[in-house]
């Protein structure tokens, strides 16, 4: 099952965990499974069906915007990271 890394400030909404395993064969499915387990995360990550503007998601080390966004395939051994976009510069 893919592992999802959760940014520190959101851990209170994920049972205090820094990561969680979530079932799915695409990023969208994995995040749906994650937010089903932790419903408080849903509105924080998503605006309707779309990821929020300042939420970046990576599969292993690649930004999903350079892949297939939420349709990006995810294998069981992959790591999905949720990273706040508002940094740097």
């Amino acid at each position, binding site marked *: 099952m893919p592992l999802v*890394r959760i*940014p*520190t*400030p*959101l851990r209170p*909404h994920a049972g205090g965990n820094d990561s969680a395993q979530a079932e799915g064969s695409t990023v969208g499915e994995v995040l749906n499974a994650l937010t089903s387990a932790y419903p408080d995360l849903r*509105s*924080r*990550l998503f*605006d309707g069906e779309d990821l*929020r*503007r*300042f*939420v*970046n998601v*990576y599969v292993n*080390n690649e*930004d999903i*915007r*350079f892949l297939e966004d939420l349709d990006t395939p995810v294998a069981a051994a992959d790591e999905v*990271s949720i*990273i*706040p*976009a*508002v*940094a*740097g*510069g």
Partner: protein
Amino acid sequence: MSHRPHFVNGLKCRLCGKMHGQQALNFCPDDFGPLEVDYDYEAMKGHVTRDSLLAGPASMWRYAPLLPLSGPATVGKHVGYTPLVRAERLGKALGLKNLYVKNDAVNHPTLSFKDRVVAVALSKAVELGFKTVGCASTGNLAGSVAANASAAGLEAYILIPDNLEQGKVLGATVYGAKVVACTGNYDQVNRLCSQIAFQFGWGFVNVNLRPFYAEGSKTMGFEIAEQLGWRAPDAVVVPMAGGSLIGKIHKAFKELETLGLLEEPVQTRMFGAQATGCNPIANAVKTSANKIKPVRNPDTIAKSLAIGDPADGYFASQLIRNTGGWSEDVNDDEIVEGMRLLAETEGIWAETAGGVTVAVTRKMVEQGHLKPDDRVVMAITGNGLKTQEALIDRIARPQVIRPTLEDFKTLLESTANAASPAAGEILAGAGV
């Protein structure tokens, strides 16, 4: 200074408006929106006046009441108050009668505008009790965090891409900071820093301290307005990497206007300059896109601007459109030509980002976005000494002669017959 009142309400989410207390946090946990320092401008009125500001030190800290510190600055006490140069010769070359250069290439202590943001971020880091600080950097920030942290006795971790100019790398390591070069580009370094900052509980200036950090850029705008006789210019041309500076310069003008300190209403058009090899914000402006399309592999000699996924790109593109400005990008040859033109007309050697700014200014004139009579300020943000690689093979080397009068006379005769140099041709073409 030490008894000045504090006017900060807290950190406000730019998306949902929710207020958060002053803390090391850069995004709203409710929607990931950027947090921005929120001030009580009504309370400032009467306390913050032209006279009170002018009575302050000849540094960025004369604007301390408009910055988010709870006490006096402890880091970077001599930063800012750089010259606003009336650039007549460059103006003639570009076709602008009222051109100014805000010259942060001579900012103290590390020769870039980054000293402004670092001074605020590290002073805040001290207030919040951090002992270890850090940053992700394309170069200028690396040097500034390293230098200012060393002077403040803070431990510093500096993360950079592994392809930076030697001057930028040396300009960070010399201060004793722990400099870590990562394989890959800036955006990958930046992502790693987002994880490090929260994981280790360190104060990363452009991650968890970013709301405070970004406010430091306002001082460039405050100084421009003051130096123009308490007026906002008609246009500002600003280089864009993460896209924060352009917004903060405009915010500075609006804050002075809100406080009733300007002669005229702010009608400044904001112009953003990028390199063609990394132009996500310029591209969004030119295509009226609502989302920034990140650039996967930035490729430009303007490495300090090589941020493919700019955090403030969306806000920068909105601001540019809303103020009636525009954005363009220029290639490496145009960047070098811009650097040379600024050097040869004004005696200012800016880094590659300065070449971007000059070259884009020229394009804005050619495209009719800037009019000859506009009062235009170019933001020059870094020093050419740090990006020598960009020029070293493109500038003529000195001619070698024996130390005799005869050789010198021969040399003069041969150069008189030779073609004039590049910038000379540019000037001649512009009727100088």
